């Protein structure tokens, strides 16, 4: 089964990434809600990388690969943009977002709540985000 996709950094390509994840997961017995949550978590990370880390520069790429071992799904998302600084991340206060009319900043909260484990790694060459989700 094809388990890897690479797309250029434009928001229009998010649909392609979601379709790829959906197709990969079709073989697993997931409920609609489980499937949607996993697709969403991957979409959120990719959207952040495309928009924030790579400033929607279509000459840049992100790649995603999916593997499954003993009921654990592993998503590996690689890019060469600005690294995510987890130490600077703060959980959003949604009521405050509503009060001030803030548009962004809830994507990573969704990812953290959906996935079992979220890791970020950076070296001089590239950044990698690992997402893990137990499905069995």
């Amino acid at each position, binding site marked *: 089964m094809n388990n890897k996709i690479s797309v250029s950094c434009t928001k229009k390509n998010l649909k392609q990434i979601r379709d790829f994840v959906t197709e990969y997961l079709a073989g697993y017995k997931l409920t609609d809600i489980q*499937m949607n949550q996993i697709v969403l978590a991957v979409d959120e990370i990719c959207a952040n990388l495309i928009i924030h880390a790579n400033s929607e520069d279509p000459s840049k790429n992100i790649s995603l690969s999916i593997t499954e071992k003993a009921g654990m799904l592993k998503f590996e998302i690689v890019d060469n943009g600005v690294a995510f600084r987890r130490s600077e991340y703060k959980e959003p206060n949604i009521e405050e977002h*509503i009060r001030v*009319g803030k548009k*962004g900043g*809830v994507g990573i909260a969704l990812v953290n709540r959906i996935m079992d484990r979220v890791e970020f790694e950076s070296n001089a060459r590239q950044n990698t985000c690992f997402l893990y989700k137990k499905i069995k």
Partner: protein
Amino acid sequence: MKITNQIKDTTIIITLDGELDASSSVMLDEALSDPEIMTYSKILVDCNDLNYISSAGLGVFISHLQRFEDAQIKLIFYNMQDKVRNVFEILGLDLLMTIVSDYEEAMTIADE
């Protein structure tokens, strides 16, 4: 993403058809930023054909909610698919926004 509007007296019904992601949510933001929308007393959002919503789509609603509340405009979602409602629930937005089962219920709430 297709967004269509229908006007019924002082109510505007916004029908969302497709997927609301970081790319398509710009369209929704433009629709909700239209000054004309502030002339209605109720905004009903028909989510029957909304198949997907990401944080960008949620963010558009989050960013307009207070403005609508301040103007005493009711924002009510209805016909929402379970998987879409689940995304609102993960962030607790189902408790901060009005989501009802169908059009009749939405109209009843809107008339209160």
